[in-house]
């Protein structure tokens, strides 16, 4: 296990390095001059030259990369060319918001998705299954931005139970935090809940028709023990894989949700950085997102072995 972990960590670091090179080169290959984006409407050749000089944009790309990676290794991701604020601070402020949003969406998706999936499998062919399937299809089909606006209209304007926008840290005011996070979590989690429901249902149907379930029933175990203890536990491997993969999508999918609910998270930071050609911020967010993906993949692999001890990592016996 330790050897496997070390190998995976080494691979992850190499991947991260390659990502940094690709991102750095890729961003610079984008059309449009960052100095122009920074200069706004009052651009003159002298001002543009001064901006290029002050951000080192007139240096060779290799020199620029060397300087960037050197600073990044010490935790300095540079300053935003637009606001002048340190990128690390911006990421530090945005990341917890997106993580909280993703975690709540994941929680919602897991509870609803697994619950509905189990019910749909156990009540196969009954109205409960049709209902669960229909809701799942709806969850997959409804566009995020539309659902977001409808929820705002319904629950922030017509019936002002939740807030339409903004973020308050949980530590500052837990109730206000939840008041602001519930709607975005529903928007972000609805699609995932549908995916999880379908995966759970399919995996549960497989498990419920398997021999070990028949044996368990023959031994006289209760329905709850058979479904919860045997079938569901075995089905969870597939579901965890899906959840792990979807978590990455959640972070990137948060972009639209954060725009609708004006949450100053990672997605919003990324969009703003793209439109203002804010190289430093863009590089920082892409690097952090890549690191998150790599870490999640690693964690999912480790989780496999915890859920199902028959899966041994690294070929060890």
């Amino acid at each position, binding site marked *: 296990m330790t050897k496997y972990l070390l190998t995976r960590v080494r691979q992850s670091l190499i991947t991260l390095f390659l990502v940094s090179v690709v991102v750095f080169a890729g961003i610079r290959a984008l*059309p*449009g*001059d*960052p100095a*122009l*984006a*920074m*200069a*706004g*409407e*009052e*651009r*003159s*050749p*002298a*001002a543009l030259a*001064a*901006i290029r*000089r*002050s951000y080192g944009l007139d240096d060779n790309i290799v020199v620029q990369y060397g300087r960037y990676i050197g600073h990044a290794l010490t935790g300095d991701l540079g300053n*935003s060319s*637009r*606001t*002048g*604020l340190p990128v690390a*601070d*911006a990421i530090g*402020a*945005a990341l917890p918001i997106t993580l909280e949003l993703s975690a709540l969406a994941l929680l919602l998706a897991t509870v609803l998705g697994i619950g509905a999936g189990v019910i749909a499998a156990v009540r196969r062919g009954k109205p409960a299954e049709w209902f669960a399937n229909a809701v799942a299809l709806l969850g997959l089909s409804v566009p995020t931005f539309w659902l977001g*606006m409808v929820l*705002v*209209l319904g629950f*922030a*304007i017509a019936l*002002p139970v939740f*807030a*339409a*926008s*903004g*973020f308050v840290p949980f530590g500052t005011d837990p109730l206000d935090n939840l008041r602001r996070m519930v709607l975005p979590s529903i928007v972000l989690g609805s699609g995932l809940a549908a995916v999880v429901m379908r995966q759970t249902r399919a995996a549960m149907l497989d498990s419920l028709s398997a021999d070990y379930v028949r044996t368990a029933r023959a031994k006289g175990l209760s329905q709850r023990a058979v479904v919860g203890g045997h079938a569901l536990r075995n089905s969870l491997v597939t579901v965890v894989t899906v959840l792990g993969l979807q978590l990455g999508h959640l972070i990137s999918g948060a972009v639209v949700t954060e*725009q*609708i609910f*004006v949450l*100053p998270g990672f997605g*919003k*930071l990324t969009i*703003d950085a793209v*439109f*203002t*050609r804010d190289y430093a911020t863009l590089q920082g967010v892409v690097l952090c997102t890549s690191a998150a993906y790599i870490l999640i993949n690693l964690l999912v692999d480790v989780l496999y072995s915890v859920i199902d001890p028959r899966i041994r990592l690294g070929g060890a016996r």
Partner: protein
Amino acid sequence: MTDSRPVRDGGTLTVALNADPDKLDPSLAQTLVGRTVFAGMCEKLYDINQQGAVVPQLAAAQPETSTDGRTVTVRVRRGLKFSDGTGLDADSVVTSLLRHRDLPGSARATELAPVTSVRATGRYTVQLKLSRPYTPLTGVLADRAGMVMSPTALRKYGKNFTNHPSCVGPFRFVERVGGDRIVLEKDPGYYDAAHVHLNKVIYKPIPDGGVRLANLRSGDVQVGDQMAPVDVRSALTEPGLQLFNSPSLGYQGIGLNVGNTKGLGQKPGKPGTPIARDVRVREAFDLSIDRELLNKVVFQGMYEPACGPISPESTIAPGVQPSHCPRRDVAKAKALLKAAGVRTPLRIEFKVSTTPESSRIGQVVQAMAKEAGFDVVLRPMEYATLLSETDDGHYDAFTSGWSGRLDPDGNISNFLQTRGAMNAYGYGDPQTDRLIERGRSEADPAERTRIYRELSKRVTAAHALIYLYRQRNYVVATKSVSGVAVYGDGLVRVKSAGYTR
């Protein structure tokens, strides 16, 4: 426009902006939205009033200009304190003006270029020496170049002043969370603190107009800046909301490549296209467009047709009224194309930015120009790319706009002077250059009006930039708030704002 219902003291006002401001450093700031935040915390030597006239703000009186126009004396008000508690005097003004002019990358450098020296001639008197008479200076000092920064804060924070801005203003800077909020609080040391009612102002960037409106309706924000016509229409049906609007000093139009072959700031060349070669082709393109209809279709009739660089609302030299703009004349346009000897349909590539409004302008222009014999091909581009391509001269036509300046010179010189800093059109005309110089150095308002009228006529006839419409600044606020002021510069002023009693 203002709302003068009585207000109570206290409370926090949240203002939704349409973008996240850039640096909060008056020397480096470039965005219109940033000016709104500055309006809350950084006063200027001069300001404009409700009628659009320049009035003293940190200055004690109007500037005194010597008879040769080369020496300007500014008297500064006494007893003013920066938000960091230090006092404002002539030396602070000198430090700020020199920084605006000389700081590398300063966005104020061009507008202060004629200033050769600045010195304090008394504790509260500043003298500016100019290389030539420069009448637009007062208008310039009524914008960011006239903002005075605390020299103590400048020394302490240096380049990082942007994260600790300290000026004289009703509110002082508390914190900024990038992409989320800028928080200001009431400055008890402000000279007019007795008339400041709010405890706190939060500026929140909410780029989507629909989301801004939803937040206004839910009460999460109280003021929505720069609302689009479609959202304004929708807000008008809401009983809890009120609308402020003011005409803008800027313009929006179509830039045509008449001589940009080597890039921005270079000597005009000859692109060789029919539209660059023959002014009759450009006039035909102009005549094919119905400005009224464009305004109705794209902006629900809530903006104003325009046909010149200067707003008719300008107090210095009023421009052409929308009712006097040339009417669409397809027959004349066809005749002009025929006289120019071009083969129709004439293909023009029109670069538009990727915003829905820009695309709709493109489509409407495309449909109208087609009837006159133009084949307009739309090329939607992301804004930074569009600027880059047009500055380099790689275009036929593009959507070109400007937020506008108080002094008409700010709407003309950089764009239409030969090798002007933002002359992406490659327009070069010695007579225009002479008129620009005369307009800048003339002190007599009546004569200036005459010069700018002639200048407008000349640049409009050249059709290098086809002026189409002027936006109006629409600000929507909840009715629970009063005292918000919106003037011709489009900035939301919150100094006197508060919650109604």
